């Protein structure tokens, strides 16, 4: 395998997602970055356990010795569903905030809410 494989790509994507979470102030972009972080862990989980030329893991298949490991794929399936749920719910809440404050800027929203709380 070369230097560019699933694992290194996933680590780079994780880093990009983190930078987005930290430096972008737009809440929607922040959520996209969060999605990137979570998807990159999924990529990592799958590509760490890859097996070149393995067959599809189906019981009673042609040759059971050369199948890929089915467990990570099963795990990843539930992780994808969970990430989808998180993104969907978070976007609904962002929508509610945008309706009230007419901005997606996290700093401004946080500032306005803090000043409301103190007054």
């Amino acid at each position, binding site marked *: 395998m070369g230097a560019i494989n699933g694992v290194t790509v996933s680590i780079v994507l*994780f880093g990009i997602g*983190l930078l987005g*979470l*930290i*430096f972008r*102030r737009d*809440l929607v972009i*922040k*959520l996209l970055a*969060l999605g990137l*972080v*979570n998807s990159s*862990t*999924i990529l*990592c*989980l799958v590509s*760490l*356990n890859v097996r070149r030329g393995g067959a599809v893991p189906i019981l009673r298949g042609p040759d059971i010795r050369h199948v890929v490991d089915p*467990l*990570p794929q099963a*795990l990843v399936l*539930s*992780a994808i569903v*969970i*990430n989808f*749920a*998180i993104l969907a*719910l*978070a976007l609904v*809440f*962002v929508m*509610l*905030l945008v309706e*009230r*404050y007419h901005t997606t800027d*996290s700093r401004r*929203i*946080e500032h306005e*809410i803090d000043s*409301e*709380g103190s007054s």
Partner: protein
Amino acid sequence: MILVLLPLSHFVFSSLCLAWHRGARALTQVSWGVDAALIGALWWGVRHGKTISVGLGGWGRSLGIELSADWVGLVFALLALLVGGAVSVYLSRVTLRSYFYVLLHLLLGCVFSILFAQDLFNIYVTLELLTLVSFLLVGYERTSIQIWVSLKYLMLTALGMGIYLLGLAVLYYHAGTVNLSELGVRLGTGAQQPWVIVSSSLLVTGVAVKAGIFVFSLWLPAAHAVAMPAVGALLSGLVIKMGVVVLMRLAAVFPVSVPLLVLGTMTGLLGIAYAVSTYDLRKLLAFHTLSQIGYLAVGLGIGTRVELTGAVEYAVGHGLFKALLFLAAGTVIASTGQNDIRSILLWRSRIPVNARLALLVAVLANLGLPPFAGFFGKAVLLSGAESVLIETILIAISIGTVVSFLKLLPLFWWGRGPSTSRSQSVSFLLLSVPIVLFSPLMQWLLPEWCWSLSFRTFPAVESVLIVVFGCLVYRFLPWRRIRMPDWVFHLEEATVIIISGFLLVCGLSLLP
């Protein structure tokens, strides 16, 4: 059978609540009875320190899903039963959408599945579900601040669980299993390999974001203080404890004792510092949760049998009295209309007697005075501390707890308040009775060896001395001058702190 039924029945009840709006409250009472019966049956199964386990799907231990219950799971299940029951009784006169009960059942179902989960991936899924449910519960009233705080909670914990999943990936690549007991066997020999350190620090960081460890759980104070009081009770009493349970399971398998000790100390002392400097009643309680989690984490970090027993006892006791504190504080705030302790004290004649008494019981338990619940766990944790340094840290955290609670002292002066609500009294009683009768209850529940470990030493004098010393510090030291920075709780800063916290955990794991 019970292990599958207990979580699953709640998912059934939640969908029934969704379908039948008017009967949601009645259904909750029915489910409470079902839970009590199932937990009774569970107690029958595990009563002599035995473990019952069941493999789902018929794939064996290393591949399939294993559920198992031992005495730890049993006492936490009982905690869930009591807190859930108290919250639903407390809310029985409040008009709520049936959606709230749907969420309540989902929460309890997730709690039970975490308690019985034996593999790390199942723990991941149930923790994420718990995050989603508590996210919706925090934002239940839809005020702007609740929405913002719950969004922050969701983003930070989702990042944490992403980190956890990364750790799981590394672990599965090297060890080939995610089952905890199998991992214990496979890691038994080469425990200090680099991949073990990387994966265990990733896993611990991920869980620490949920468990209320301080530099990671920066969402916690705001979330617990802003949510409805009943939701605050659920979060502080139950949801945080689930993170602690998972940390306990991790600490049993991985070499993470040094990071846990350091993180626990940091959590305890910083939690105290913030608690001392705040005057918001519910924020005070939230920061207390942090400091007591630090106490627990130190116990888990030492990791001897005595300390683990103490940690379980204290976690359960803390769940009980913290839930009671949040519920009573909810009544106090509703009756006076104030959040700030100084203004509450001005209006204290309006506080009903039952809330006052409940608050008194819970505070005494939190201070760790004997017959109450907090005393036993604290005493066991203290008696198991081997080095002087750790003992000093634990005593310092206890003294700090006393100092920050003394602000509430004028609340307890006797006075006839307005009439009390019966449902609230019942709910306070439901939590206070086990707090007062904690020791016979634990004697009845725990296996004999745990009990004999707990009662080797009985430092009642020590706990009274700590309270006296705390009063002296409160009177004579300038603790009012302490000011803690608020910027750490902002979203971006919290993200940076979580990542640097991971590096810290990594570095600490490298130490012998």
